[in-house]
């Protein structure tokens, strides 16, 4: 580590990047920037111990193939591979609670991609400590935990951030990787557009009797979609959407009663099920920052956009921001450009803002279409599904999109 502690506040000691937020996106950005020779100070509001706990808490991520490539590019995949569950297949099924499921015939297989599985399931307890260890081991990265930002000032020659303890950190570019409630965005006067769905996602991990064979399931049920995503061993991660009122009731139930509600939705194809971690409830909504950049400032991840987690695209979209910003900064550095110049940061914004708005709108449409009991909508949707399946080109397009392989790929996400 270079210059930790008091040195960072000495005038003239500036970091190329000040990254507010020590989550997955913030850490990944610091590592990516270091590969371009840029220094970074990561300010994490949480104490380090909170990030390093090795117990399984039920949280996991569906990493698209592009995200996996990026982690590999950052040198992290060797440590993660043994804990990652490949997703070889995604089955999309339509159904009604308790009724026999209707297989919609929408079937995505990784064999339709050029290489590798469609994605991987990785648990938070493995991903987070791997990133933190890499931050410690990388020259040019300073990590300050328990560091809460109270003020930020942008000047012609740099940006200065003031922490709760009164110390200041100065740098060339400020990056907000501080989530949906991004203080960095708020302090910069960036407003957000957002809406709620009146739905809540119930998230938990379960253990089941029979092996999942690396198959992910997306069940479209009238109350909302249910995703069953394979974890290592005979375990799966569940993302289950219900109306806000119903979800509040279900979340309040004791474990056994909770499972009783889940069982008819889940079905019995994996045998008996039991809980394997903490239960979470996340109100679903979409937020989009009105700008992803401001003078000397860029927003990444949920600070820029929070999408409905229906397709597991939240972290993937965040990593795509990180890869795009790192790409823009890397190319600017190679050319000798000022990384903080407005025209440099604009390249990041114009790259990502369009992609993100498209993803937000299509995910929204997808969810509205599948969370319905309206027979007309259902008929139209089933016809659409059949068409998608009959047209291999279109289906392959959807697979590549879900795997994060469509569009203009940042260097870090190329194979």
């Amino acid at each position: 580590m270079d210059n930790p502690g008091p040195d960072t506040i000495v005038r003239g000691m500036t970091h190329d990047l000040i990254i507010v937020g020590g989550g997955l996106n913030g850490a990944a950005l610091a590592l990516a920037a270091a590969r371009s020779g840029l220094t970074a100070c990561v300010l994490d509001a949480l104490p380090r111990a909170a990030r390093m706990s090795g117990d399984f808490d039920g949280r996991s991520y569906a990493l698209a193939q592009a995200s996996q490539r990026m982690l590999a590019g950052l040198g992290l995949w060797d440590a993660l591979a043994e804990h990652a569950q490949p997703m070889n297949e995604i089955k999309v099924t339509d159904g009604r609670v308790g009724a026999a499921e209707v297989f919609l015939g929408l079937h995505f297989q990784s064999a339709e991609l050029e290489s590798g599985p469609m994605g991987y399931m990785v648990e938070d307890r493995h991903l987070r400590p791997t990133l933190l260890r890499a931050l410690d081991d990388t020259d040019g990265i300073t990590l300050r935990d328990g560091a809460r930002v109270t003020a930020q000032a942008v000047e012609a020659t740099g940006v200065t951030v003031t922490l709760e303890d009164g110390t200041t950190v100065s740098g060339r570019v400020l990056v907000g990787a501080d989530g949906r409630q991004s203080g960095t965005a708020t302090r910069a006067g960036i407003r957000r557009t957002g809406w709620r769905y009146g739905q809540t996602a119930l998230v938990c991990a379960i253990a089941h009797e029979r092996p999942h064979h690396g198959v992910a399931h997306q069940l479209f049920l009238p109350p909302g979609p249910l995703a069953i995503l394979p974890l290592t061993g005979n375990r799966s991660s569940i993302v289950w959407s219900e109306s806000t009122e119903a979800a509040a009731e279900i979340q309040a139930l004791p474990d056994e009663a909770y499972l009783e509600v889940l069982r008819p939705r889940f079905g019995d194809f994996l045998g008996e099920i039991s809980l394997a971690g903490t239960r979470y409830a996340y109100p679903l909504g979409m937020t989009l920052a009105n700008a992803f950049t401001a003078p000397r400032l860029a927003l990444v991840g949920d600070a820029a956009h929070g999408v409905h987690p229906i397709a597991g695209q939240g972290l993937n979209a965040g990593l795509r921001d990180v890869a795009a910003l790192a790409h823009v900064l890397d190319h600017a550095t190679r050319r000798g450009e000022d990384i903080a110049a407005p025209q440099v940061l604009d390249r990041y914004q114009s790259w990502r803002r369009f992609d993100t708005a498209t993803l937000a709108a299509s995910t929204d449409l997808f969810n509205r279409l599948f969370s319905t009991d309206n027979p007309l909508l259902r008929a139209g949707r089933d016809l659409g599904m059949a068409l998608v399946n009959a047209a291999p080109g279109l289906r392959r397009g959807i697979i590549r999109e879900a795997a994060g392989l469509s569009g203009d790929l940042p260097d870090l996400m190329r194979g």
Partner: protein
Amino acid sequence: MGKVVTSTVDASEIAKFEAMAAEWWDPNGKFKPLHMLNPCRLDYITSQIAAEYDRVLGTPAPFDGLRILDIGCGGGLLCEPMARLGAEVVGVDAAGRNIPVAQAHAAQSGLEIDYRHTTAEALAEAGERFDVVLNMEVVEHVADPLAYLTACRQLLKPGGLHICSTINRNPKSFAMAIVGAEYVMRWLPKGTHEWHKFITPDELFELMSQAGLEPVDRKGFVFNPVSWKWRLSDRDLSVNYVTAALAPALPA
């Protein structure tokens, strides 16, 4: 400004740029087209220098030890990146008002750059020598291109690298660079360019050869109106293009 020794600079051309000097560093100001083109120019310049001097881009200060001259430096849009990459940079401009603008900005960027109000001819006469001469979007503004390119060659150390970009002369370049950029898009003030001064790539190669330079490469700068970006092209040199040439090496 007074006449600086024997100069091939056209006095009315200098006045046009003096009027625009303060706008140099506004990416959305009058020099917006140059800011838009700059990444593409820098990609070409940096890769040519790296290849010629065996430097690795992406490492700290890859151009350390190289002395680079930028002719027609304006506000320093090329000088600053070269200095950031570790080069010792001299920027000259025949328009005196650009010099304080460039100096002020370099100070703000924390960069050391030697900006001078002079001409290529005067520098050559004073015996200054460089590893690299950047001659970007200048040759179409000078009164005597051959005399000017000869001065550029004299400014190079033996085997030194000369990078020169300009605008082709054909109906398309007239439509794009003058009607499009000056009248339709209002990117450039009317009268910035005079079409008859534009030079075709073959003419430029011939002029450079006459000036004692050995042309080694040429590429097009192509604007894509859909992505709103410039890119380098091996084939399309129909409007903006860039060339690389070498000064003769010392006899072995």
